[in-house]
C-alpha cells in the first residue's frame, strides 16, 4: 500500500488534547473536528493539512483514548502519520479508522516530498529511504479496506 504527501513536522509527546480539544468532542460533526484540529498547537495548521504526511516525534498521540483525534486528522486530509513511536491507543485507533500509521525513526523536513509503503514499512523523505516496523497482515487489511467498520462488514 503506497502513498505520498508533503511533510508537516511535529514535536514529541503531542497529546490528543492538542490534536482535538475536549471542548469540541460533544458532536458527531466530523467536519467540526477537522476545522479545529491542532487548534491549541497551531491554529493555522488545520487549513494546511490536505495531502500532508504528519511526521511527529516520539510518543505521538499520547493521553486520552478519544478517537476524534484520528478522525479529525483523516477528515482534514492527512494521508499518513509517521513517528518513531506512538501511544498505543492512538495507533490502534488510526488503524481502526483506516488512517495509515508507520512506526519509523525518520527525520522530518518541513514541506519535503514523502513517499511510503505501508505493507513494506518504509518511508522516503526527499528520496532517502528509512525502514520502520511493518504492520501485521490483519492491521494492513483493516487499513486497506478503510477501517474496522468495513472490515467487520466483510469478515463477520
Amino acid at each position, binding site marked *: 500500500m503506497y502513498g505520498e504527501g508533503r511533510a508537516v513536522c511535529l514535536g514529541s*509527546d503531542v*497529546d490528543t*488534547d*492538542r490534536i482535538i*480539544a*475536549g*471542548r469540541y*468532542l*460533544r*458532536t*458527531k460533526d466530523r467536519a467540526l473536528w477537522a476545522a479545529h484540529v491542532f487548534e*491549541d*498547537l497551531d491554529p493555522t495548521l488545520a487549513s494546511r493539512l490536505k495531502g500532508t504526511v504528519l511526521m511527529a516525534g*516520539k*510518543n505521538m498521540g*499520547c*493521553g*486520552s*483514548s*478519544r*478517537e*476524534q483525534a*484520528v*478522525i479529525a486528522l483523516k477528515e482534514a486530509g492527512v494521508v499518513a502519520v509517521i513517528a518513531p*513511536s*506512538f*501511544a*498505543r*491507543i492512538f495507533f*490502534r*485507533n488510526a488503524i*481502526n*479508522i483506516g488512517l495509515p500509521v508507520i512506526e519509523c525513526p525518520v527525520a522530518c523536513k518541513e514541506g519535503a516530498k514523502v513517499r511510503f509503503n505501508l505493507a513494506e514499512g518504509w518511508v522516503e523523505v526527499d528520496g532517502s529511504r528509512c525502514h520502520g516496523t511493518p504492520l*501485521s497482515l*490483519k492491521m494492513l487489511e483493516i487499513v486497506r479496506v478503510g*477501517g*474496522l*467498520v468495513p472490515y*467487520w*462488514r466483510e469478515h*463477520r
Partner: protein
Amino acid sequence: MPTLSERILGAEAGSYVDVQVDRAIAHDGTGVLAHQAFCEMGARGIRRPECTYLVFDHIAPANTSTTAGLQRELRQFAREEGITFCDIGSGICHQVMAEGIVRPGEVVVGADSHTCTLGAFGAFATGVGATDMAAIWASGSTWFRVPETVAIQITGRLQGAAEAKDAALAYVRDLGMDGANYRALEFVGDGIAAIPMAGRLTLCNMAVEAGAKAGLCYADRQTKEYLATFGVDAGEQVPDHPHYVKEITLDLASLSPLIATGHRVDHVQEVAELAGQPLDQVFVGTCTNGRYEDLLRFSRMVRGHQVKVRTIVVPASRRVLERITAEGILLDMVRAGCTIGPPGCGPCLGAHMGVLGVGEVCLSTANRNFTNRMGVGGEILLGSVATAAASALRGEVTVPEVPDVR
C-alpha cells in the same frame, strides 16, 4: 515465569491473542462514536450484554442541548440492548467498576484511557478507542499483543504528608511520559501490602501517563477484604518470579509531596520548590483522587477553616457521595467554603464546568496537565489531596503538614 498480564491473557509477551472480554465499559464521551460505529457495522445486538457497561460521567449532567440529544440516543440504546446503564450522578466509570464489579484475573476493556485504574484488582484492564469498543460489543472479544512488563518495586512506607499520588507522580517522573509505552507495569515489592485499595487504584490510574497499556497489582488479602465489603468473594494472586524487561525501585519512605508542572505529567518537582505560587482554583476529585479516603483526608485538613481560593470537590461516585454525606464529611467541606459538584469527571477534561480562564492556575488532584486541557490559556498543576488541601487554605501552593489521617 509469567507476569500477571501473561497469566491473565494466557500467552507469552510479544504474542497476539484473541480474548473474551469480561467487562466492557464505555461512557458518554466515547459511547457516541462507539454506537455510531456499531450501527455502521450492521451488528445484530450486543453479544454479551451482561458484561457491558455504559456510564455517564464525562459531561454529567449535560451542558447543552446537543450533548443532551447525544446522551438521549445512548440512553435509549443501552435500554434496548439490556446492558448495565449508569446514568448521570452514578460516578466515574472506573470508580463504579471498582465498587464490587471488577474481580482479580478478569480482562477489562474500557473506551477510556484510564481503564488501567482497574488493574489494582489484579485484572488486565486497558483502554481502547470507540471503534474497538463497537467491535467488542458486537463480538464479545478483542485482540491484544501481550505486553512485556516493567516492575515497580515498592519499598518502605509512606511518611509525613506523602500519599499514593506522590508515589504515582514519582514513577511517571522516573519512567517518563513514554517510558512504559506498549508495556504493562506491575506494582510489587514489600511496600505494596501496606497500600490500601484506594491508593493502589491511584497508582494504577496513572500507568497510562507513562504510556503503559496496563498497571497491575497482585490481588492479596487487602483486595480480598475490600471486595468482601461488596459481597464479592475473590481469590488471591501470588507473583511467581515473573520475567520483567525492566525494574525500577520506588522507596515510599523517601517520598515528599510532589507536583507536576509545565504541562507535562513527567515534569515533577517537590511542592516546596513551588511554594507561594498563587492559585486561582483548586480541584479535588477524578478517577485518580476522588474516592472516600481522599475526601476524608481533604476534609480533615480543611475542617474548621476557610479556603482562600475557589475550590471544587467532586466525589468519584454516588457511593462516595453517600458515605461522605452520612459521615458529615460533606458538611465539613461545604462549611470550609468548597463548591461540590455531582459525581463524575467534573472539570478534569475541560469540557464543561470548572474551566479555567486565560492565565489562571489550577492545582488539581487529576492525572493530566496537558496544555489548555482545563481551558484555553489555563495552567494545571497536579498534586496530592494533602497538597490540594493545604494550598486551598492558603490560596497558593503550600507544602502540606502531616495530616491526622492517611
